[in-house]
């Protein structure tokens, strides 16, 4: 019976395969127009996968992320291959001149490999590609 439970636990844990972002803090103070955000990224897929970390800016709604920021953001490295269940420590440097407490969002994106299927003899077929992204909100204060 105990063995069955253990087997079920292993099977269940194998299904948790998403990437996750862990922030050291929820709030960061800007010094010299720069906020330094410490974070860790992990995933629990069965094999090493490539992940991309990116930052999204604020919108008028503090619960919604805006556009991906391409300027004023430095993450080293921002794309990397990560083994399962390993924590990758990263530091994000955000240059901003916020005048009030402002939400930002840091995200880890996983794009699965494309499985290309050719239509056989004019057959109608299709495939759907679902990329997944996990984001965490943090606040930047002047």
């Amino acid at each position: 019976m105990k063995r069955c439970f253990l087997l079920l636990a292993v099977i269940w844990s194998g299904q948790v395969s998403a990437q996750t972002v862990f922030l050291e803090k929820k709030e960061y103070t800007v010094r010299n127009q720069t906020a330094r955000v410490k974070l860790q990224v992990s995933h629990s897929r069965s094999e090493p996968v490539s992940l991309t970390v990116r930052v999204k800016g604020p919108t008028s709604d503090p619960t919604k992320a805006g556009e991906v920021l391409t300027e004023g953001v430095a993450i080293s490295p921002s794309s990397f291959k990560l083994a399962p269940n390993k924590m990758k420590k990263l530091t994000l440097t955000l240059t901003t001149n916020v005048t009030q407490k402002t939400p930002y969002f840091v995200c880890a994106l996983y794009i699965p490999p494309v499985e290309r299927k050719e239509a056989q003899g004019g057959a109608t077929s299709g495939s759907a590609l679902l990329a997944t992204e996990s984001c965490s909100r943090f606040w930047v204060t002047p």
Partner: protein
Amino acid sequence: MKNKFALAAVLALVCAPAASFAGTSADINASGTASSFCDISNTGGPISMSISANKDKLVGTGTYLFSANGDATVSLSALTPSAPQGAAAYTESVNLANLVSSSSTTSAVDGATKTGVNKITGAITTEIGQNNASELLSSGAYSLATTATCTAL
């Protein structure tokens, strides 16, 4: 001499427990912070779509797992479809059961905020359906791409 050994033995017995009791109290303080997180994954692998019996749509199914240890939202980015050249008009949709559903190719769609701790498994349904007078889907290969994003608040 025998008396001295006996006295030493008695002293050792009496003193030893006193020594072992000295300094036995210890304060243990443990503290930690659990980061808020969410994650979402397509646990069913690649989704292939096949034509329906009515020949009017391609349908695919998969499964997702969503988990969060606090308030979180899930959204779908604008859908990116592709179809055979010259295909008759069609529509597209992606549905993550109980989380979010979209048929928009122009903007992202947000689901309702999930509050508290959640671990949800559910079905993913993808569909490309005809939208023309003949009510038929043109032959050929179609694809549909989107990104499901969860945000821990």
